[in-house]
């Protein structure tokens, strides 16, 4: 199986191909630098994303605060995390940078205060 990506590590945007078999990386082509290769391998074997959303807040100037995960979350776990976030309810005051919840060891941080 060959996976094709546009590298997003720098603006050059190389087209990288990663060849995989049975969960093993056979080869990487198309990258111009090692950073791109590392990224592409990670992207195939363990893709992760920082997740952001909003959470309702009581007693703030706006009805929600925005939040993000303090670290990237494995892609396949994102729907589960979103379900967890959908149940959260906060009370003002909330400060930017405050840890408002924790999910499977991952901190949920407020990015907008209330």
């Amino acid at each position: 199986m060959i996976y094709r990506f546009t590298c997003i590590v720098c603006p050059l945007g190389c087209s990288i191909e990663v060849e995989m078999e049975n969960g093993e990386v056979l080869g990487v082509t198309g990258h111009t630098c090692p950073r791109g290769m590392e990224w592409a391998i990670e992207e195939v074997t363990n893709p992760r994303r920082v997740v952001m959303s909003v959470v309702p807040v009581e007693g703030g100037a706006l009805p929600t605060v925005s939040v993000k995960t303090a670290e990237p979350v494995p892609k396949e776990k994102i729907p589960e995390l979103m379900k967890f976030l959908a149940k959260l309810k906060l009370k003002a005051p909330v400060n930017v940078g405050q840890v408002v919840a924790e999910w499977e060891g991952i901190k949920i941080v407020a990015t907008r205060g209330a």
Partner: protein
Amino acid sequence: MEPMPQISMLSYDVVVIGGGPAGMAAAVKAKELGLNVLLLDENDYLGGILPQCIHPGFGLHYFKEELTGPEFASRLAKRLVELGVEYRTAARVLEIKNYSDLEKVVIFTSPAGVYQVWTKAIIYAAGARERHAFEIGIVGDRVAGIYTAGEAQTLMDIYGILPGKEVVIVGSGDVGLIMARRFALEGAKVKAVIELMPYPGGLARNVMILRDFNIPLYLSHKVVEVRGRGRVQRVKVVRVDENLNETGEEFWIEADTLVISAGLIPSVKKLKKIGVEIDPATGGPVVNDRLETSVPGIFVAGNSLLINDLVDYVAEQGELAAESAKEFIEKGGIESRKWVKVRKGQNVRLIAPHYLSGDRDVYLYLRVARPMENVELRIPEIGKKLRLPVVKPAEMIRLKLRAEEIQKASEKLTVEVVRA
């Protein structure tokens, strides 16, 4: 008879119109430079569009750290408060009057009444407005469920309301792609992203969103019609040819929501009214290297100047506008022995500033018309050449020119992007 609203008089060195990143950076800088400054914004909160841009991708240059939009805004707001900058929210500017170079008036309304502010200089940082469905030729029933990307974003990320469950997005620029992710994350089905051009409009890292959520992208297609009873029910999509003309090939997509992300246009109505010259290519004012418009003492920054994709450059423009306002007030005007005109050459769609003095280093902001690889950015008049591996209309190019380089030109500079 209704009593006349009381008009209160205020007086400042500089009034900043718009409290987004451009306006906040300008107000902070103006205060640091010792000016008596007032910042006005019509929203109930500062930050412009940043508080609703909850994704990361802000501030890598300006704060040397990757932040979300609200975090970027709160850093600037903190600085503003620490310095004691005077600002008013829920303050909508209705009119600008230009009596003479150092006598201008800004009229604004706020819950407390109508105010008339005398000021020596104005920094205009009112951002941009979004194109609506009718402006991109979509016809059909008048139904609920049609939003601009910004409207949908405000509903979701400020008010926590999901605008719809089955969504078609028009435009594959960064804004359209980021909205596709937000809808998908919140459990809506994004049925398609429709792009007129034969290539996606956004940055590669945002195009990846489509793969992450299995969202189909239709390149060289456009939405032409919306049908529904009361609410959007289906939208008609047509394929276009190389000249962007509609072909006969068409199909319908069932959806309850149509999100239009078809670009931003600088908000310059109030400037036009007082005779500020507008560049049809940027949609913003024609400016010199101090970001001064054709009306002396009126400066412009951020998305009102030209549409920026990086907030870092927006803040940089705000700071420059503040420095320029200080120079304007101290010297009674911005003077130069000559003004070198900046011209658009091959594959340059838009560029600003438009006139350079050669008295200072400048950043030129430009966009190409078409994507190209392996190019050289050239300014023949001064022998400047710069190799670039890739250029795309979606990515603004920022080019630094040193004062000595500009001085080599006599009347004009031509910026062109050609095959290397």
